[in-house]
């Protein structure tokens, strides 16, 4: 394809090559705003929810692509958090049992802990 003028085009390898964030940034945030017959105001609250959802959705997308480093991070992954909680629970149960064993003599002597 020939371009108008001497335009370097080495940086666009077809639209599949463009970073999705670059495209969304332009088509959602830039470009002239004209009130159409169908009134959806991208400038309003919708755009915010779209943006928030994009961030969340991109996490799912990344996971599909095998980028899953957060899976083992308790702050980010409920799966990892469950594992962490289960381990903590087991540990706490052991400690409670140990404490109860040391408390036994107290109970038997009738001294109620205040």
């Amino acid at each position: 394809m020939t371009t108008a003028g001497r335009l370097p085009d080495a940086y666009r390898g077809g639209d599949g090559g463009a970073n999705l964030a670059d495209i969304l940034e332009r088509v959602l945030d830039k470009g002239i705003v004209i009130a159409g017959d169908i009134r959806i105001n991208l400038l309003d609250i919708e755009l915010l929810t779209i943006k928030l959802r994009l961030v969340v959705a991109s996490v799912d997308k990344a996971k599909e692509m095998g980028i899953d480093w957060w899976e083992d991070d308790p702050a980010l992954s409920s799966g990892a958090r469950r594992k962490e909680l289960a381990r903590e629970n087991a540990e706490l149960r052991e400690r409670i049992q140990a404490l109860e064993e040391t408390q036994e003599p107290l109970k038997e002597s009738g001294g109620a802990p205040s």
Partner: protein
Amino acid sequence: MSTELRYVYAVCRPFDAPLQAELVGVEGRPPRLLRHEDLTAVVGAVPEADFAEGPLRAHLEDLDWLTATARAHERVVAALTTVTSPLPLRLATVFRDDSGVRSMMQEEQGRFRWALGRLAGRVEWGVKVYADGAPEPRPETRLSGPGAGTGSGRAYLQSRRARRDAQDGARQRAEAFAERLHGDLARHAAAARVHPPQNPALSRVPGVNILNSAYLVDRSASEDFVERVDRTKDEEPGMRVELTGPWAGYSFTMPSDEGPAGQEEAGR
């Protein structure tokens, strides 16, 4: 009975070159030209079932739909950019029928003429600067030395502080580099805009996005501009400079007095 609406991609000055025969836009429909006086709108038919207010609102929250539509929108605008300097409209600007598009063009012709005049013969280049994390501080040899046992808490805090200082230093260097680069590029552009940094979760690009800017550059000056950006790529260690484009002038469709003065518009 009409079940089709009109999706408008861009407005242009009339141009002679034909659009690519195989070019398809939103919903796989080919765009066509709709002339009104000395302006041409690039429009495509879209199903009312998807683009009436309710369904459109729902679709916009569906990432796959949004991605496909955004790419299709940009595909048409990019194709136009090879033959003219289009004024891109925001995603999902939709009208009932051709006459709705025409009356919009009649109403908005002042703004269109102004913006098309500014974009004529120019393209937009995007430049992003990333800092690839702070350099690791040198290993704290003292930690394992004599007296480390009693002083380990303090040594730990010291090493943490050293790391934080190194990070702050790297960040400051990155910002200084980005500021210098932006100033230099803006002087060689017809106009410049600084956008908010991109969210790494969305762009999936490693490193901290320090600068995210756009430059409106004459087509004839674009080769020099690209070379200018290329030359800075190895200038600063730990810094990555990324160039995108040529885009249609998306970032330059509004009068510049909306943003903070000085920063927004570069000299002639």
